[in-house]
């Protein structure tokens, strides 16, 4: 026998009356904190403080402590010189790919003196993966996991709900957005918590274009610490502007939601540890092969002269429209494989501060990395084609706008 909803609720009511007794409810400290963090007057300042803490810990742990304090010294001081010394065939193509492409000055082969310039698989590849990205990802996921297990995320969703409605989403879109700051790949799957196809499309497109992943954030902290704030500002502005436009042009509905705000909980250390391990290891299974492969591909393309050719070909667009040097063609190819690698590569190209800013923003908004791409395909090829179309328009439009802003400010 099947019941209709009314009959079912009637039945439940009478069952509950018989089996449940409600005692007097005491207002606990947990409830009080819960309310303080969700009411806008107190909740918003707390949310800003939480995000600020998140960012400072991220930067100081990953960048200052681990990378600068330890890995740079290890890799530049010992690993690179040692490999440069013992690896045979200096100046040959295998040496260039695996160890150090070096540079020619006055007809003499000069070795690189740091792991960003060397760009070998065993030098820059390992350094980027282990020295820069590993600490960034570990600390990012540790903090995210704590926020998740405490139960803070739905409260953040409530606070930001109004703003996200302006771009066709709702508060819960903060979940894929924040996950995406760790890695875009699981974030694409997390868009499934949104109700309509329109919302999922907008979310997927925005995160693929405007949200830098943890690896990329880590490397930006490392190589352009003075500019990272501006890069993020451009990305956030882009996220909202293009979200606003997409909301207007994409057909479909953006329904309201009811958010279930759970009680705060003390995070269980076993769960935190396990979750951290799962996320970091699954991230690395995807990341490390692509970083290493990226080094090989880029080096080979340099060696055969493809990147110089492409740079010359695209020079009018790069120099004229985007206002960046034509050498950025190389990093843009690398960006398809790994964005962290691309930023590392950009950092050793000679250019002005504003050009660097524009180039890093371009690397971020241009094509999602191949792993994200594959994930989006899994969610539907129509969506993927749509996203790529939007992306192409955005790169040209926004890239041009950024150049224009630089010109108007007199810095480009």
């Amino acid at each position, binding site marked *: 026998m099947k019941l209709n909803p009314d009959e079912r609720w009637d039945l439940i009511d009478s069952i509950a009356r018989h089996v449940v007794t409600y005692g007097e409810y005491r207002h606990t400290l947990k409830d009080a904190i819960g309310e303080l963090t969700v009411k806008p007057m107190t909740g918003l300042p707390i949310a800003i403080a939480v995000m600020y803490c998140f960012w400072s810990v991220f930067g100081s742990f990953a960048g200052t402590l681990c990378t600068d304090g330890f890995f740079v010294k290890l890799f530049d001081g010992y690993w690179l010189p040692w490999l440069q010394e013992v690896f045979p065939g200096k100046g040959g193509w295998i040496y260039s790919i695996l160890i150090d492409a070096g540079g020619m000055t006055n007809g003499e082969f000069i070795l690189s003196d740091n792991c960003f310039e060397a760009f070998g698989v065993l030098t820059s590849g390992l350094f980027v993966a282990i020295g820069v990205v590993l600490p960034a990802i570990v600390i990012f996921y540790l903090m995210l996991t704590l926020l998740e297990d405490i139960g803070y995320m739905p409260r953040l969703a409530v606070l930001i709900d109004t703003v996200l409605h302006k771009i066709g989403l709702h508060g819960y879109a903060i*979940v894929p957005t924040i996950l995406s700051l760790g890695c875009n790949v699981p974030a694409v799957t997390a868009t*499934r918590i949104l109700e309509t196809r329109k919302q999922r499309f907008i979310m997927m497109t925005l995160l693929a274009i405007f949200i830098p992943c943890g690896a990329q954030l880590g490397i930006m902290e490392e190589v352009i610490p003075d500019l990272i704030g501006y890069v993020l500002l451009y990305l956030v502005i882009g996220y909202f502007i293009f979200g606003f436009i997409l909301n207007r042009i994409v057909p479909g509905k953006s329904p309201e939601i009811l958010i279930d705000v759970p009680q705060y909980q003390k995070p269980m250390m076993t769960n935190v540890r396990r979750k951290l391990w799962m*996320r970091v290891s699954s991230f690395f299974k995807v990341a490390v092969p692509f970083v290493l492969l990226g080094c090989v591909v880029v080096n080979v393309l340099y060696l055969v002269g493809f990147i110089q050719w492409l740079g010359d070909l695209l020079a009018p667009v790069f120099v004229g429209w985007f206002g960046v040097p034509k050498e950025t063609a190389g990093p843009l190819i690398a960006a398809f494989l790994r964005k962290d690698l691309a930023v590392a590569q950009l950092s050793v190209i000679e250019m002005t501060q504003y050009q660097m800013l524009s180039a890093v923003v371009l690397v971020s908004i241009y094509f999602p990395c191949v792993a994200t791409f594959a994930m989006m395909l899994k969610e539907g090829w129509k969506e993927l084609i749509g996203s790529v179309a939007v992306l192409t328009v955005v790169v040209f439009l926004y890239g041009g706008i950024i150049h224009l802003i630089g010109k108007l400010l007199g810095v480009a």
Partner: protein
Amino acid sequence: MKILLMGHPNVGKSVFFNRLTGANVIESNYSGTTVDYTRGYMSLDGKEVEVVDVPGTFSLDPKDRAEEVAVAMLKEAKDAYVICVIDSSKLERGLYLALQIMEEGYSVIIALNMDDVAEDKNIKIDNQKLEQVLGVPVVSTIAIENIGISKVISRLKDAKPVDVEDITVMRAGMNHCGRCGRT
């Protein structure tokens, strides 16, 4: 034999799943952590049994992609046992889904999870009476602390399809129960 873990979002299905199968799926304190299903295995009386962590759903009328996955999982496993995980402090709405699943003819066992939260809120549920009314096993659990999980496993064999008509009859009987004096 196949066991599905079903229930509302954020009631602890993934915690249950990890405890039952020793697997590692992501657990968090918010709705929508699991958006796809995960399969795992546990041994029951020496046999390997498949356990599926199903995304949270409020009802069998899906509202988003994750809920669609949940409903599809249920529909394709006609002879599955369903462990319906309910947040003890929100019994009523949990029962709604449980009844829907029972109406579809599945063998259901109810896990009243987060018993500690209900206790904090001073909510008491009479398990035995609930079991008697519904005709399916009811077990209190605190999955995150591994409390009650083995009891759920041991009572799986008591789960059987129930006709909701019997429940309505039972309820009618309770409403006119002279001995307990309540209506």
